[in-house]
């Protein structure tokens, strides 16, 4: 196959780390799409280079457990910077790993995040003029599930 150019490897630049405080899951149950459960996002904090703030209460993650053993992540929530600027995040991706690892994770045991795959792609929306570039950038997330919270590092795909 003839190619136009040498592929340019996208690079990932760290943007923010978000810690989400999550509540007890609500089982929606076996729907037409699979086993669906809802995890409320109660709050949290975020911080990056020159930007920080809190996670607003009222978000959630509508997780879908699929038959292939992977879990689809579909999280929506809002951030508020220390300057009162609001950013809406839609974050979708996958979490999966060896059965034993996922069982330990489900039991709330500490698990090294390198033992499972927890990656997302995120779109951000804001009306803040200085942050307009967030609307025009695609982000990749790398997550860690902890007992009482979820930590996601968001990277700019450059």
């Amino acid at each position, binding site marked *: *196959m003839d190619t136009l150019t040498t*592929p340019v490897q996208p690079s990932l630049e760290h943007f923010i780390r978000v810690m989400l405080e999550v509540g007890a899951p609500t089982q929606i149950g076996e729907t037409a799409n699979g086993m669906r459960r809802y995890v409320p996002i109660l709050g949290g*904090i975020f911080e990056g280079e020159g930007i920080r703030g809190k996670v607003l209460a009222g978000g959630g993650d509508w997780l879908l457990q699929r038959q292939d053993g992977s879990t689809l992540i579909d999280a929506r929530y809002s951030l508020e910077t220390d300057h009162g600027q609001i950013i809406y995040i839609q974050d979708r991706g996958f979490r999966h790993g060896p059965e034993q690892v996922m069982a330990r994770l489900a039991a709330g045991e500490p698990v090294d995040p390198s033992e499972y795959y927890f990656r997302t792609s995120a779109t951000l929306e804001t009306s803040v003029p200085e942050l307009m570039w967030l609307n*025009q950038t*695609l982000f990749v997330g790398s997550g860690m599930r902890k007992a009482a919270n979820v930590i996601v590092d968001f990277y700019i795909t450059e």
Partner: protein
Amino acid sequence: MFKSCSVLVKTLFLLLSTVGFTMNSSADTWQKPDVKIPTTELVMDLKVLIGAPVRVGPSDAGMRQFIPITGGEFEGQHLDGAKISGEVIPGGADWQLVRPDGVLEVKAIYAIKTADGAVIEVDNRGLVASVAADEEKNMPASRYVRTTPTFKAPKGQYEWLNQRVFTGTITPSPKGDFVQIRVFVIH
């Protein structure tokens, strides 16, 4: 290409930020990312043949048009490095929207067929945004072009495509008769 813009914004934020704050958090691993930064690896390189754009017209969300996908070919590799190749099945399209902020949203939906007979749906959505020139850094105006491809593969050896996050690039051919799509898996 995008860096100058984001660095500028970040610099502004640093100037605005107050000094000496600490995060008060019970998070055991808040401070430093103790995880390795995800890496990207090229897994699919597609030459997608395209037809003339069909104008849908103005809408509430912006100007819409679609680009017919008329065929093509691809090559790539599995996660273990085993080679894959095949063709682009004619009949898909890239549904495009020019947003009021000038960003072009792309949404290409089509199918590929591997040399060993698997048909895989490709859903490739993303952004084409203009990045202003930065004279101080001697950076010419450029474009930010990134997509988030997703796949629907049948059960079997291509199933990993259903379970990973990808990032993609788009390079148009000089004649406009095809686009080169590169798909990178996020490890």
